[in-house]
Structures are given as structure tokens and as C-alpha cells.
């Protein structure tokens, strides 16, 4: 298990944990973290140089679902080896640089730890042998990116940018997940080796009808995967997070937003190159999006004034080039460009960091010290090397040089060259930027198919001729001359004066007459006006009232059901559900208005023993409108329970089962009861459990009960009580009434989707922490996540005495231990449900509560003590173990779940 490969991947994580644990000694911590990354880099180089052929090292099994077994493994081939070298080398340089750059920052060690954890996740991503592990690394780097962008957590802009980056990436991740599912649908496997083997065997893959057109499923899968790559690699449409990500510290931008994480999309396409080869349509999409990004991002970079944003847009543009290479099926060239780009772009970013550092934090190139190149000549030279590499000038692998010659009248007296530890990494990267291209091409032969050893698809090239190869350089020079002509400066370089005047005059004609009338007014103005008009009208649909949205969603469900089941069933359901909801609501309102006494409540509670403790907990020890909330809770759930009892009694009466076990009752129902009656029983049971679960629109009791309940009550409510509904659904609806369950399967899926979206949106709009958690519980069906969250909440209420998020912001600086736990469980909770929406509301909770500046007079908060921290840490470890090694739990559950699903499997042909 502890092989070279394993150590190479895990050393950065080990270093981060040890370094953070020894945080009191700053120098020692920095030394440990950097040493681990150094060892990892050495091992990466060793693996790269000694690699003969592709092999895989198994670490441990992960989980098995049906026939699909997924294991943790480290797959080493040329593609992953070169990525390992790039990631660890750049990471090491950035670590060294950060020691100097963050020397004045109190969170410097935390920063280094984040960088190391990021390096670990990136290595997990590039060495994965299956899609699931790759997705784990994919999400991990996204999480680290979030933490690093929001590193200065007291800064509001940084928090907003971090949240934006995470949520936009989540949009891409959702597509990636769908792509993975499509791949599984096609190949029945998520292991790269098995998929590539099927492709090499030349098996045919099916088609599917999309809007009446027969489309290859593989094409859909590839396009979905590419949409995932667009988010991570900031391609046009999902690129908006990258410029904002520059709010993070510059070394983080150098490592994540230039060299490594943003290239994960390119890596994924190269890794899946045999799959993409099956679909020309997908490659065309990659090509078009890559080209558009290339051009648009470069144009936007020209008008930027923030030095980091210029480089960020340039990164977008360069990533577009890589996707163009992928779109033309030159995956190896994309990786070649990726490797060289990582070196010179990180060089540019770190050099930009030097410039910012020496200009007292000024990032606007127009406001920097006048001609500062004289004061920082070494940085100036390094920036030249980086810029020439970026431009592709031989022998190097810009726009930034403008920084050093800016005409500002301001002169900063304290401007100085950076320290040795910041300059050394730049020198190493500069050497890499100059020689890496030649080394990779001439020495290792990266452009040939022998180098790659089958790790990606390499097509033979035809010689394109001298003229075509020189064309970019010729066009570049021509563009520069035209620019000079436009500014009437051609005489400086002895260009014919007459031609200069001609060009200049014509260009002025263009800008003077044609541009304002045609381009500005009709084209740009017209588009802007059209978008603005559409937005003005479409915004009226957004009333901000949850009921309106719910109505729209229910209309969607009705339409779907109309299509799926036909008219009659829809009418029945649409009448039944609102009618029942109205009855319950009227009953509960009436009961509360009469201020029902405790005797009646006790009477109802004695029948339904599971609800009594919760009723008293809310009613006696709650706060605010506790009596109202208690009775609302009781009336909703007790009514559901009465309905449940009635259903059980009826089923028992008509089933004529030999015993009262679930199995025998199911058999009795199937043989003795007509299908229509099974349907009625199913509807009754489902409504009961929909209230208990709760599912929209039967959910309104939960938020009020949550908010008014004492913390312990909320814990039981979120962690246990509402899970009874899920259990009942499984036991009664599915096990006892399988035929009716199959009949209503699509309806339940639709209703769950509506419930998920509605509750997620409502959670996002909440200002009270407990309300947010309550609605997230509605959206969540995960026992662990909700239970964990409740405990988290328990700590919070006792400490701060408030649940209003606006009143307890900036906890990170006051209660670091509790804050760390909140962020951890938020991330655990932002797992799957809704993907994008759950991330949005959970990150909002973090932003409002944990990050930001603590308000004045908030010094009363005491952090959790070691014992409490240990309890939460144990739960956190449980969450991690369940995520990373769920096999024992799944094995334990497997027989029970299979037993439950036996009746459904028998019905599969009729409802699948």
C-alpha cells in the first residue's frame, strides 16, 4: 500500500495536516509543508523518468453497487506522469514563493496548508483510473479553490468571489455528473480501462432520439463531459468566475487559476480521448467553444487594467487554444501546451505578484509607480521571458510589459525588488519557460506517438509547410504595424509616410462615420437594447413570492403527468392533493385559533407516542410562538398518523394475510385486492409519509417547528423524526404495494424534484439559520448530513444566543474551531441534492455566518472547548469515512435493500 506512487500522492496531504497541527511554530510548519511537497515533486520526477508502460496501483476498495465496483487506485501512465510533474513542480515553486509573499500575513500557514491540500486533490484527479475517483479530485480542487479565493475571509469581495467560483463550477460539475451517468449508461462501467477496451473491440453504441433527431448517446455523453470541463476550465459561458477569482492571493492564482486546476478540463478530454474520438459532433463543439473563448478572452484582456485580470483573461484565452487542439483531435499538443503554459503562466503570475508587492498592493497598471522597471529590473526581465513565452516567440515557450512603462506621474519611493525566496522560484520557472518547450519536443519527443505509449489518442501529422507555420508570426507583425499606423507612429519605424497617412485617415473614417452609426447604434446598441427589453419583461415573472414559483413548478408536474399518464389520472391527483392540503391547513388554523388546551394535546399525543416528546419539547422548552408551533407540528403529523392507522387497518382487513409481517401482507394484497384498491391504499400511505418526510406541499409544519424548538428538539427533528417518513415510504409503499409504487414511480420522482428545487430556493432566501437548515432538511434526504447539521446547530445556539445570520457574522475570527466545523459540515451537506442549489444556500450560510468581519460588540462569543470540538471532530471523521470508505455500510445494507426490491424486480418489464 505504501508504494512510491501512494507516497507521491499523499505526501502533500500529510504535510498539510502536520504543518497545520504545528501552527505555533511558523518556520517549522512552513518547512514541513514545503518539504513534503518537495518530496512529492522528486517522486513525481522519478515516476516520470522511470516509467516504461502504463500500470495501476490499487489502494483499497471504495464501494460496490450492483455489478459496478469502484476502487481507490493510482493509475500511472505518460499522461498522468507528465501531469504529476507539472503539478508538483509548479506547486513547489508556489509554496516557496508563498513563504515570502505571505510572511506578513497572520494566516500564512493556513494558506500553505490549503495549497498542499489542493496539490493532493489535483494529484488524485490526474492519477485516477475511473470517473468516480476523478470526480472526487475534481470536487476537491473546487473546494480548495473556494477556500483559497476566500482566504482573506474578512474581505466581502473575496467571499463573494469564492462563492461565485464554487457555484459556477457546480453548474459545470452537474453536467459532468450527467456525463458520467451517460457514460455508464453506454458502457455499463466507469473504469477507464474497461471503457477503452470496449471501444477498442469496436462495439457499437446506440442512438437516442433528441427533439426528433437520432443522436449517438456517446455524443451526448461527450458534450455533457465537455460542459463540465467548460466550468472548470473557464470557457466562454462559464468563464465569469475566473476574473473574480483574482480576489485571492496571487500565489493561489498562480497555482490554481493558471497552472493546474483550470487545466483539469483539458486533462479530462485528453484522458477521455478514445471516447471523444467516437463523436465528431462533440469534437466540433469543443473546437467552436475553444475558438470563441480564445478570441473573446483575448479581446477582453486588452481593455483590462487590473494586472491580475489581464493574466486571468489571458489564461482563459490560452485554455481556449488547448481546447482548439483537443477539438482538432490533437490531444497530445493540448497537453504539450498545457505543460509549457503552466510554467510561463505561473511565472507571469508570480512576477505580477512581485510587481504588486513592490507597488504597495496597487493592481491597476495605470496607477503603478512611474517606470518602475528601473527599480525592479530582475522582475522586469522575468516578465519579459514570460510574455515572450506567452506570445510563442522562438525559443520561448504580452501585454504585461506596459506595466513597467506606464506614464503615471505617481512615483512610489519605497519600491524595491522582492526577497530571495520570492525570486528563486521565478528564476526556476523562467528557465522552465525557456527550455521546457525544446526539452519536451526534442529530448522527450512529446509530439510523437511513441512518447505517449497509448495513454491518449495521437494522430499522425502531415507537414503543413513553411508558410503556414510562419503565418501566425506574419499576422502578428502585421497587426502590430496596423496598430502603430492607427496611432500615426509609423514614421518612427521608417514606414512609408503616405501609406501611414492613408491608413490613419481611413481608420479615422471608420471610427468617425461608420462605427457610431452602424456598429455602435445598430449592432452593439441594438443587441444591448434587445437584451435589456427582454430582461425588463422577463423580470416581471420573478415576483419573489414562493407561492408563484410553486404554482409554476406544479404546473410543470401537471404537464409532465399529462404527457406520461394521460388526462384522467392528472385530474384525480391534482384535485386530491390540494384538497387534502387545504383540509389540513384549515384544520390546523382552526385548532390553533382556539388555543387548544394541553389536555386535548395530551390525548392526541398518547395515541401517537413518537410525537409526544417532540410536542412537549417544542411547547415547553421552545421559544417565540412555541405553543403555535407545537400544535401545528402535532396537528400535521398526528393527522398523518391517524390516516396511517386507518390505512394499516384497511390493509389488514382486506389483505387476508397469513401473518402480520410485511412480506405476507404484500402477498395478501397482491393476490386478494384489486389493483384499483391498491392504488387508493398507496395514495393514502404516500400522503401520510409525504407529511412526515416532509415533501412539498405538506412541509409547512417543519420550518416553524424547527425554529421554535429548542436545539435538542431540532437535532431529533432533523436527524431522526423526519427520517421516519422515508423509512415508512420504503416499508409500506414499496414493500407492501410494489405494483402501485411502480405505477406512481414517475409521479414521485417529479414531485421530489419539485420539492428539492422549491425547498432549495426557499432555503437560499432565508435569513434565519435554523430556517435555512429546516428547508435544507426538506431538500435533503440524507440522514447523516441532516444529523450532522443539527449537531452543528446545537453548538451555535448555545454560543451565540441568536439564529439570525446577520447578527453573528465573522465567526471565523472569533470562534475558529466551531467555524471550521460549520464549513466542513456545510461542504458535506452541499454534496449531491440539487448540486448547484445546495452549494448556493450552504455557501451563503458560510458567507453570512463564518466569513466576513465580526460586527462591533460581538466579543461575547466563546469558542467551543476541546471536548465539544472532539465530538464534532468525531462526527466529521464519520462523515469522511462514510464518504471515502462506505463499503462496510453498503455491504450491511445490501441484503435488506435487495429483499425490499425483489417485488419490484419482478415487475420491472412493466414499469421500467
Amino acid at each position: 500500500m505504501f508504494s512510491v506512487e501512494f507516497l507521491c500522492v499523499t505526501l502533500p496531504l500529510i504535510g498539510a495536516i502536520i504543518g497545520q497541527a504545528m501552527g505555533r511554530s511558523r518556520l517549522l510548519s512552513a518547512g514541513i509543508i514545503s518539504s513534503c511537497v518537495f518530496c512529492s515533486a522528486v517522486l513525481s520526477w522519478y515516476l516520470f523518468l522511470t516509467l516504461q508502460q502504463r500500470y495501476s496501483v490499487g489502494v483499497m476498495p471504495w464501494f460496490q453497487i450492483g455489478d459496478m465496483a469502484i476502487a481507490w487506485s493510482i493509475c500511472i501512465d505518460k499522461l498522468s506522469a507528465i501531469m504529476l510533474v507539472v503539478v508538483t513542480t509548479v506547486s513547489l515553486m508556489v509554496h516557496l514563493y508563498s513563504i515570502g509573499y505571505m510572511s506578513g500575513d497572520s494566516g500564512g500557514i493556513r494558506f500553505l496548508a490549503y495549497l498542499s491540500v489542493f496539490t493532493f486533490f489535483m494529484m488524485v484527479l490526474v492519477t485516477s483510473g475511473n470517473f468516480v475517483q476523478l470526480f472526487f479530485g475534481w470536487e476537491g480542487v473546487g473546494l480548495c479553490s473556494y477556500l483559497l479565493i476566500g482566504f482573506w475571509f474578512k474581505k466581502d469581495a473575496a467571499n463573494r468571489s469564492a462563492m461565485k467560483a464554487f457555484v459556477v463550477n457546480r453548474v459545470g460539475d452537474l453536467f459532468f455528473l450527467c456525463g458520467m451517468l451517460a457514460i455508464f449508461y453506454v458502457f455499463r462501467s466507469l473504469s477507464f480501462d474497461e471503457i477503452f477496451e470496449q471501444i477498442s473491440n469496436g462495439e457499437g453504441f446506440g442512438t437516442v432520439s433528441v427533439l426528433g433527431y437520432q443522436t449517438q448517446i456517446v455524443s451526448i455523453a461527450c458534450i455533457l463531459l465537455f460542459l463540465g470541463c467548460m466550468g472548470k476550465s473557464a470557457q466562454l459561458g462559464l468563464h465569469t468566475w475566473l476574473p473574480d477569482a483574482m480576489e485571492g492571493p496571487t500565489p493561489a492564482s498562480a497555482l490554481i487559476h493558471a497552472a493546474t486546476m483550470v487545466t483539469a478540463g483539458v486533462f479530462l478530454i485528453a484522458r477521455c480521448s478514445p471516447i471523444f474520438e467516437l463523436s465528431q459532433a462533440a469534437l466540433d463543439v469543443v473546437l467552436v467553444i475553444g475558438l470563441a473563448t480564445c478570441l473573446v478572452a483575448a479581446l477582453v484582456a486588452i481593455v483590462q487594467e487590473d494586472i491580475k485580470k489581464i493574466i486571468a483573461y489571458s489564461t482563459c484565452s490560452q485554455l481556449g487554444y488547448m481546447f482548439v487542439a483537443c477539438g482538432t483531435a490533437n490531444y497530445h499538443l493540448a497537453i504539450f501546451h498545457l505543460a509549457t503554459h503552466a510554467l510561463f503562466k505561473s511565472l507571469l503570475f508570480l512576477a505580477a505578484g512581485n510587481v504588486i508587492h513592490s507597488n504597495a498592493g496597487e493592481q491597476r497598471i495605470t496607477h503603478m509607480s512611474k517606470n518602475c522597471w528601473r527599480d525592479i529590473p530582475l522582475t522586469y526581465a522575468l516578465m519579459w521571458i514570460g510574455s515572450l513565452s506567452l506570445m510563442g516567440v522562438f525559443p520561448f515557450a504580452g501585454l504585461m510589459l506596459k506595466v513597467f512603462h506606464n506614464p503615471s506621474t505617481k512615483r512610489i519611493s519605497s519600491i524595491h525588488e522582492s526577497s530571495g525566496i520570492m525570486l528563486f522560484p521565478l528564476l526556476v520557472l523562467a528557465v522552465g519557460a525557456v527550455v521546457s518547450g525544446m526539452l519536451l519536443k526534442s529530448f522527450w519527443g512529446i509530439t510523437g506517438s511513441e512518447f505517449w505509449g497509448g495513454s491518449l489518442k495521437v494522430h499522425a501529422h502531415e507537414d503543413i509547410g513553411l508558410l503556414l507555420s510562419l503565418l501566425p508570426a506574419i499576422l502578428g507583425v502585421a497587426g502590430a504595424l496596423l496598430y502603430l499606423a492607427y496611432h500615426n507612429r509609423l514614421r518612427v519605424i521608417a514606414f512609408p509616410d503616405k501609406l501611414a497617412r492613408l491608413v490613419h485617415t481611413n481608420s479615422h473614417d471608420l471610427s468617425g462615420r461608420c462605427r457610431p452609426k452602424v456598429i455602435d447604434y445598430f449592432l452593439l446598441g441594438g443587441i444591448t437594447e434587445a437584451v435589456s427589453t427582454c430582461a425588463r419583461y422577463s423580470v416581471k415573472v420573478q415576483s419573489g413570492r414562493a407561492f408563484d414559483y410553486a404554482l409554476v413548478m406544479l404546473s410543470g408536474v401537471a404537464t409532465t403527468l399529462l404527457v406520461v399518464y394521460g388526462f384522467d389520472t392528472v385530474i384525480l391527483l391534482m384535485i386530491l392533493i390540494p384538497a387534502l392540503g387545504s383540509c389540513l391547513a384549515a384544520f390546523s388554523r382552526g385548532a390553533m385559533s382556539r388555543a387548544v388546551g394541553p389536555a386535548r394535546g395530551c390525548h392526541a399525543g398518547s395515541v401517537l407516542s413518537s410525537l409526544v416528546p417532540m410536542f412537549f419539547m417544542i411547547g415547553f422548552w421552545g421559544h417565540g410562538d412555541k405553543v403555535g408551533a407545537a400544535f401545528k407540528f402535532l396537528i400535521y403529523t398526528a393527522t398523518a398518523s391517524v390516516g396511517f392507522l386507518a390505512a394499516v387497518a384497511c390493509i389488514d382487513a382486506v389483505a387476508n394475510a397469513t401473518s402480520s409481517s410485511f412480506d405476507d401482507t404484500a402477498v395478501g394484497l397482491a393476490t386478494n385486492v384489486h389493483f384499483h384498491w391498491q392504488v387508493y391504499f398507496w395514495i393514502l400511505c404516500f400522503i401520510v409519509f409525504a407529511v412526515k418526510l416532509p415533501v412539498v406541499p405538506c412541509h409547512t409544519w417543519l420550518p416553524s417547528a424547527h425554529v421554535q424548538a429548542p436545539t435538542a428538539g431540532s437535532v431529533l427533528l432533523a436527524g431522526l423524526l423526519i427520517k421516519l417518513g422515508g423509512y415508512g415510504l420504503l416499508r409500506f409503499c414499496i414493500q407492501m404495494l410494489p405494483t402501485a409504487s411502480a405505477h406512481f414511480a414517475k409521479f414521485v420522482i417529479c414531485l421530489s424534484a419539485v420539492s428539492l428545487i422549491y425547498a432549495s430556493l426557499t432555503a437560499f432566501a432565508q435569513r434565519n439559520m435554523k430556517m435555512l437548515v429546516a428547508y435544507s432538511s426538506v431538500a435533503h434526504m440524507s440522514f447523516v448530513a441532516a444529523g450532522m447539521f443539527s449537531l452543528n446547530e446545537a453548538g451555535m445556539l448555545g454560543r451565540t444566543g441568536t439564529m439570525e445570520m446577520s447578527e453573528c457574522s465573522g465567526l471565523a475570527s472569533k470562534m475558529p474551531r466551531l467555524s471550521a466545523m460549520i464549513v466542513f459540515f456545510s461542504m458535506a451537506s452541499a454534496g449531491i441534492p440539487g448540486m448547484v442549489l445546495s452549494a448556493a444556500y450552504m455557501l451563503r450560510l458560510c458567507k453570512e455566518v463564518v466569513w466576513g468581519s465580526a460586527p462591533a460588540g460581538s466579543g461575547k462569543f466563546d469558542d467551543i472547548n476541546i471536548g465539544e470540538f472532539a465530538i464534532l471532530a468525531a462526527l466529521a471523521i464519520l462523515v469522511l469515512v462514510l464518504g471515502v470508505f462506505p463499503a462496510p455500510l453498503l455491504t450491511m445494507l445490501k441484503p435488506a435493500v435487495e429483499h425490499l426490491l425483489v417485488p419490484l424486480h419482478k415487475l420491472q418489464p412493466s414499469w421500467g
Partner: protein
Amino acid sequence: MSVSTAAYLARRAAQKERVQILYRRALRDTLTWAVHRHLFYQDASNLREKFDANKHVEDLDAIDRMIAEGEAQYNKWRHPDPYIVPWAPGGSKFTRNPTPPSGIEIVYNYGREDND
């Protein structure tokens, strides 16, 4: 002073205030738009000319109309990413986590040190 005169003066004073605010904002925005300093000087003098051209207007309603037009124009052309000095609110260095210089410490119980 009659009521009508007082109302007139109050309205003039309000208009003067609005014009000053508009001019200051427009001038600052011009500085953000101009990449080079020499361009800024030219733009700034053009802006001043536009304001000076109407300084003799006496009609209160006409002044109101012109101010509204000016404000609309300013809002239309306002820079989407205005320049903020690094250490000011919204700047790149604002609310980072620097270690306080030696000799400076945070007093958590300010004013009640004697009771400790």
C-alpha cells in the same frame, strides 16, 4: 424675506449641491476612464466646459431638467469597474489579514482594564 424668495433660494441651493456632486462624480469617473494622464486632462477640461456653458441659466425648471439629463448621462456612462485605492473600502488590500506591527496590540476590554 418672503416665503416665495425663501423657497426660491432653497431650491437654488439644492440645485447647486446636485450640480457639485454630479461634477465631482463625473470628474472622478473621467479619471477612471482615461488610461493616460494626458487624456484625462483633455477630458477633464471638456467636462468643465460642458458645465460652464450653462452656468448662466436662471430658469429653475430648465436647470432641473439639465441636471436630470446630466445625471442620466452620468449613470449611462459610469465606469463598470471604478478605480479604488488599495487600502480604501473595496480596494484590493482592504480588510486583509496583516499581522499588526510590533508594539500595537488589541485591547479587548477597553475602558475596564482596572477591573481585571
